[in-house]
């Protein structure tokens, strides 16, 4: 199903113009010597093809027509590769004519002598889209995985891309055919031993303390787009990622999937796979007081420091030590005043987010899991009345 057509015509009468009836005089249909489908631009697909065409001395017309494909007419460009330029010996495009009610155009090309010219015709084609997905087969220890990055190509353009070079840097060029209506998936990158960090992550809501009901704890795998992970050279485009785990029975199970956003070099991506039951977090507000209160002459509070103590009761029912990562949402000019437990570290991500990492020992078989209680006291300075 070929929807674009390049036709060589020669205006038999010298000096004929491009929109003359000579456009119907087919002389040769030059073979396409190469077709490149460039998907580098995130919003548009560029196709360009090169052909050798015989030119007669004087005026030549080259028709380009399409039917049933969505080509940006203004983008269609003819380049002369063998004899470009403005000199006397150059081949030149004199004009381009656009016929009425047709998806077509005609180039009027002048050649000072009969010869063969290599031309490149390029155009922006709509309907070809690309996307990225990932797959990781995680080892039994959940420390590394076989990582594959896939490029998906969907061709809804109406044009068969026959024997095309598919160019999506940083991938190497691929030579394939992608028919209209076809969806193809290519392996864009692979690392059989991608290091993985397994985490348990809770993201409790601001001001929402579920107490005995417990907070949701998600299983998260963290991968790094870094050179030590044999990545880190290019951005990992956003897309769906699926994880499979080695079940120890010479097979695997599906662990879950997530959407990851663009991950630039040097950054980490978190893959959230769903809630877990073997790590439990109960979070309570155990103190909410005001300090350094300043009042006006009417005895109303005009300024105060807010002191909040949050309690995290954490239990690990797994037979291995785990790290629980709590993303705590905060507001105001806060600081951590006190942490009551060992094995806890904090990292301020921003004014609105504190990450608390709690190391939990493995559960002992036949015994109840040790409950670790962590009290974290925050002080928020210079609150105005009404602020929480």
């Amino acid at each position: 199903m070929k929807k674009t057509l390049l036709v060589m015509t020669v205006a038999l009468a010298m000096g004929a113009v491009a929109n003359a009836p000579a456009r119907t005089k087919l002389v040769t249909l030059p073979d396409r010597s190469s077709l490149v489908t460039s998907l580098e631009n995130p919003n548009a697909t560029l196709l360009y093809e090169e052909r050798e065409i015989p030119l007669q001395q004087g005026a030549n017309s080259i028709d380009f027509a399409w039917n049933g494909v969505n080509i940006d007419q203004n983008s269609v460009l003819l380049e002369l590769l063998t004899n470009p330029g403005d000199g006397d010996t150059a081949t030149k495009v004199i004009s381009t004519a656009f016929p009425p009610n047709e998806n077509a155009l005609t180039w009027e090309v002048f050649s000072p002598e009969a010869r063969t010219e290599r031309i490149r015709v390029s155009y922006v084609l709509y309907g070809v889209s690309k996307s990225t997905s990932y797959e990781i087969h995680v080892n039994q220890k959940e420390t590394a995985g076989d990582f594959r990055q896939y490029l998906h190509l969907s061709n809804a353009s109406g044009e068969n891309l026959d024997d095309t070079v598919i160019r999506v840097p940083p991938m190497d060029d691929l030579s394939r055919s992608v028919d209209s209506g076809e969806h193809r998936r290519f392996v864009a990158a692979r690392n059989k031993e991608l290091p993985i960090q397994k985490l348990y992550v809770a993201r409790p809501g601001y001001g929402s303390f579920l107490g005995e009901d417990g907070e949701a704890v998600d299983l998260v795998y963290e991968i790094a787009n870094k050179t030590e992970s044999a990545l880190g050279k290019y951005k990992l485009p956003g897309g769906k990622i699926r994880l499979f785990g080695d079940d120890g029975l010479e097979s695997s199970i599906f662990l879950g999937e997530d959407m990851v956003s663009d991950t630039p070099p040097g950054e980490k991506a978190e893959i959230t796979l769903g809630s877990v039951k073997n790590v439990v977090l109960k979070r309570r507000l155990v103190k909410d007081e005001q300090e350094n209160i300043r009042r006006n002459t009417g005895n109303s509070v005009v300024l105060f420091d807010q002191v909040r103590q949050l309690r995290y009761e954490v239990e690990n029912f797994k037979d291995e030590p785990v790290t629980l990562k709590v993303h705590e949402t905060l507001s105001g000019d806060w600081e951590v005043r006190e942490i009551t437990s060992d094995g806890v570290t904090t990292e301020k991500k921003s004014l609105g987010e504190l990450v608390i990492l709690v190391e939990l020992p493995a559960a002992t078989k036949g015994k109840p899991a040790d409950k670790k209680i962590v009290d974290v006291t925050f002080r928020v300075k210079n609150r105005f009345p009404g602020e929480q």
Partner: protein
Amino acid sequence: MVYTRAAWRRATLAAIALMLGAAAIAPAKIDLVTLPGRDETELTIYNSQDLTLVRETRTLSFAKGKNEIQFSWANTLIDPTSLQIDFPSAKGLVVLDAVYPSNTSQLVVWNIEADEPTSAQAEITYFASGLSWSADYVVKANAAETEFSLQQFTTVRNNSGEDFNDAVTRVVVGEVNLVELIAELARRGINVGQEEASRMVLADAVMEADRMDMRKSRAMNAPAPSIAGFSGMRMEAKEIVKKAVSEYFLFAVEGKEDIASGWGKELPNPTVTAIPFDLSYELDPRRYGDQVLKFYKLQNTEKHKLGKEPLPDGGYYVYSDDGRGGMRFEGNTSSKYVPVGEDIELNLGSDGLVLFEEKIQGDARGNFDFDSSGNVIGWDVTRTVTLEIKNSREREIPFKLTHYIDGDWEFAKVSDTGYERVDQTSVRWNLKVPASGTLKIEYDAVIHQGTRSKGIAPAPPAPMPRPRR
């Protein structure tokens, strides 16, 4: 004397009938047996309005006394109030009046008084609707994105209903004011009344001024010389002569063109090569939104191998060498009219390879002012912010960051990267972001509130926004 209709063009524009020695308008419309062909047609096409000034030249014969020239059209939108006839090189010919008969709206009859029998070249001018032109540009940058070639194309589209053959084509850049649309005037035709009469007077004045301009610029429109051995086929792409006229800019295409009705025709200008430009990634949220955009920037100056004439507004298709022997589509964009000396900014959109992240790290209040009742009436907020630019390209990139901080503020501390305080609310950094790396800027800005703010009336304390759940 009865004349029969001669060859009638497809679009039936400009049938000219000549009644020799007629004393008055005859009741029946009569056409000349031999239709005088156009000696020359000139199209002056505007891009700011649906307006084309058509000037056609025909050689007519006159008998002594009163002659009638009849001009009719069909399937073509012509403003009848704009029709004029003139004899610039003939003596003894006087246009007595122009008559728009009541029973047809697409016909005019000029009464011409001739001192003696003569043959003269008549210039007929009118405003037509349906022709348009646009400027398009193709930019091809080298792989290093330091230089590009630029080719400008002038595209004329003819939806007028009339074929124009061997037409001198000129296009005009600039905003021209019209009291009424030409297409509307053409559809309405002549409706004789006071209002219409005044319009016609106005149209006459405008037309006369245009005719004077045309005569001045006619020298530019000489046909291109033929190249021996190629039967008139041009060896060069047509030169497009450019000339300033008042506040407008005229682009005259060398030679003559055939532009059939319904067709468009694109004419290339010579390519300007090796134009130096600046690659720039930019973030300016209030101007462009939250995405980092890629730009090619230069000036319409001789330093950038341009600067000879303004660049008409138009669409740009931008490509670059992909370093693999092929080309990369950088994007298509449009640019406004660029006068000589003005900046050219080609906004290529986001290539997704440069990301920006802003994080507020602190918002500390202090330096409180209290009124006599002990209420807070002023304070400072020290806002600690990190700005991160993450570059996924394998090359260092220039990055222009325009960042906004509202209110009365000053920096208490800022990364040693150099910045420019543009105005009260904006600050700008011109940065270099390392290849496949991240550049971080940190600052503390003290923002004065209430009585602490200069010249701003005290405001009641506003609660801090609560974070989203």
